[in-house]
């Protein structure tokens, strides 16, 4: 049941939802959101695409395999955790780097391993859920 309206709408929706998912991911540290929620929204975006235009189309839009995405996400999360080990701190201790200042108040923005970890979570959830949904869609 492929409908033109749904297909066109889905493509638009995909872009909007992906942007929204990244927005949810990034604001997660201070307001409701985060990697889990962002990843789920991102996965939903592609699933809508798959419902509208088929799993093959969703895979084409995604470009990389969702399994690879999940494993890379896990690797990123692990790396962010092990980074603390470089400074002889226990693994998964957050490391913060201030850009344009030396504390939260004075700096323009910060680079931190905590956000990197959340990006890992985002990719894991996105990849895993998509892998499940797309392969189920294809195999039944």
């Amino acid at each position, binding site marked *: 049941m492929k409908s033109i309206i749904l297909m066109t709408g889905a493509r638009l929706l995909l872009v909007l939802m992906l942007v929204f998912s990244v927005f949810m991911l990034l604001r997660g540290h201070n307001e409701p959101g985060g990697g889990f929620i962002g990843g789920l929204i991102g996965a939903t975006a592609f699933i809508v695409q798959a419902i509208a235009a088929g799993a093959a189309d969703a895979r084409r839009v995604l470009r990389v395999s969702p399994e690879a995405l999940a494993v890379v996400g896990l690797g990123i999360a692990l790396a962010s955790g092990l980074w603390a080990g470089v400074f002889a701190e226990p693994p*998964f201790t957050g490391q913060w780097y201030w850009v344009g200042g030396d504390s939260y108040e004075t700096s323009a923005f910060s680079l931190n391993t905590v956000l990197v970890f959340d990006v890992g979570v985002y990719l894991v959830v996105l990849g*895993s859920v998509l892998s*499940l949904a797309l392969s189920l869609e294809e195999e039944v």
Partner: protein
Amino acid sequence: MAGTPGRRSDLYTLSGALPVLIAAALFAWFLGMAPAVAGGEVLRWAIPWVPSLDISVSFLIDGLSLSFALLITGIGALVLLYSAAYLDGHEHFSRFTLYLTLFMLSMLGLVVADNMITLFVFWELTTITSYLLIGFSHAAPDSRRSALQALLVTAAGGLALLAGMILLGVAAGSFELSEIRAMDEPFTEHAMYLPVLILFLLGAFTKSAQFPFHFWLPNAMAAPTPVSAYLHSATMVKGGVYLLARMHPTLGATDVWTWTLILFGGFTAVFAMVMAVRQTDLKQALAYTTLMALGTLTLFLAAPVGYAITGMMTFLIVHSLYKAGMFLVVGIIDHETGTRDARLLGGLARAMPATTLAAALIGLSMAGLPPFVGFIGKEILYAGGLEMPGAMLVLGAALTANILLFATAGIVAFKPFWRPAGGELPKSPHEGPWPMLAGPLILAALGLGFGLMPVFIAEPLVAPGVEAVLGREGTVAELTLWHGVNLPLILSLVTFAGGLLVYLAHQRIRAMLAAAEARALDFDAGWDRFLDGLKAVAGWQTRILQSGYLTSYLMWIFATMSVTLLVTIGLRGGIDRVPVFPMLDVTHWIVIALVIAGSAVAVFSISRIAAIAGLGVVGIAVALIFVLYGAPDVAITQLLVEMLIVVLFAVAALHLPLLPREGFRKLHALVAVVVGGLTTALLMMASDGPIDRRLTDYFEIASWPEAFGRNIVNVILVDFRALDTFGEIAVVVIAALGAYALLKGAPDKEES
């Protein structure tokens, strides 16, 4: 084996030479500590392991540890050297030396550990490595059975020991043995004393093969002879004795301790010697004399008397020297003649002069004749026995055991060499290679040397050892060959006379014993019956619990859960207050109505889509609950997941068959209502009491200043508890990859 031309001996390979060098180096290292320890110093070294549980890896060297460590490394080096020739050319030679080296290091860890948990870990490592060593000839069913038997008996004792250690550690407030020993109040007054004592004794008695756990030790002779020489004479079985000696200051000096050790040790000693004379296999005979030695050591650990403990320490060293040597001699005989049968062997003195010399010296020490160290050991035991409670009992046991030991020494060390052979030997005897002779000769020389100059073991080993067992007040008896004419000397003379008589009559005694044994209780067969029974019970309960029906599995699980909940609720006194139900406003009623309606549809509908929709409704209702009570993150996640579940099920379920119509299942409904009701009751009780908010409070305070995040839930997930989250996302990846493999990698996909 060794004679293959052009082949390099295994001794000169890495796996042959390295272990010997390691053992020798360790021996030298420990020897270097001897002056300090002889001076009364106690060396301690510790690093924290699990600080939150007061567990550290700590080692302590005092006289007792050092004596054991020197025996372990010294005899270990000789045995490893010996094995290189004994097993030369064996296809698993490297594996053997690896096992033996691992065993040596485990045993070493056991005797120098100060923390009880560290001690336990090494204790179990010796059990496991000895299992591998006893079962080394894994192709032989006998060997496998003996290995498993030794493993099960000693590991069961190990579990008892662990329980005892935890009990002691909690009761005394420390897991460091040195701290427990240094406590002001004696632990023997503690309410937990008796349980702790029983558990420790179970551990020690199984390890040191005290009656009625003795049966595994003779069976363990299935191992290659160097293993028997090492594990079952000098080291592993002495682990139990070491433990008793180590715990003596903490658990000893009570009536229960004294009499338990006297009875079990004494009985084991006498029983073992009777069995030893009965054996025709030289190795089996030696195995039983080892049992006797263990019994004797246990016996003399019974009393906090300086003489008795001096006797124990001396006999410990003496026995290790002559028993390891004797085993090695038997190994040479076996290796060069092809048999260990005492009835066949004879006339070896001419063909094997060096072995004969070693055997003679070791045998004389074993028989307790002057001027060998065995004589000193025996004398001091008699002297100690006189001062112990139940002196007559102790002396009687020691005397009987020593008479029979004298006779056994004759059977093993004299008869095969000097008496005519009893029959045709499988191989024509010739001298063993030098690596095999080195061990027995050195041990024999030490037996003589220490006998003439007992001060070399008295000062660095025995005296500090006695001090370690008894504390400062311990009076150490002097070690010397000549004490003057006194009762111990008379007892020694009685021993020699009796031993000679038994030796001369041993063939007749053996026949009598064989007849008696046939009617006696057979512990080995009892062990088999015990195992059969265990397997039968396991089979029976498996048939009941694991019927292969999913419904029955779940019934068991839910029934267990119900009983557990019911008992817990009952023990906590039930629900003592009627819960306060607040006025519900309309949102609450909507949520409750959605849950009930959704669940009901899911339960009763036979339409797949309707059921899935019902589940979706429940999911949304749960999300509403999260919204109502300040959990926006959770609510969003719940909504998204609920949506995905509906999508996945809608995709898959439509390709599955229709739901079958089913009648009302009364029994299942009853179980369901009970589980549901108990969950409600439990949750009411749980949320009625006070709540521990320490963690939450910490997170609320630290979230912004320390982790720079305003969403506390997210900060917990990605910062405070990031390691947990990492584990969880790893699970998600595994689930996804597993499903992917199931769907894409199915072998019969093409068929469908």
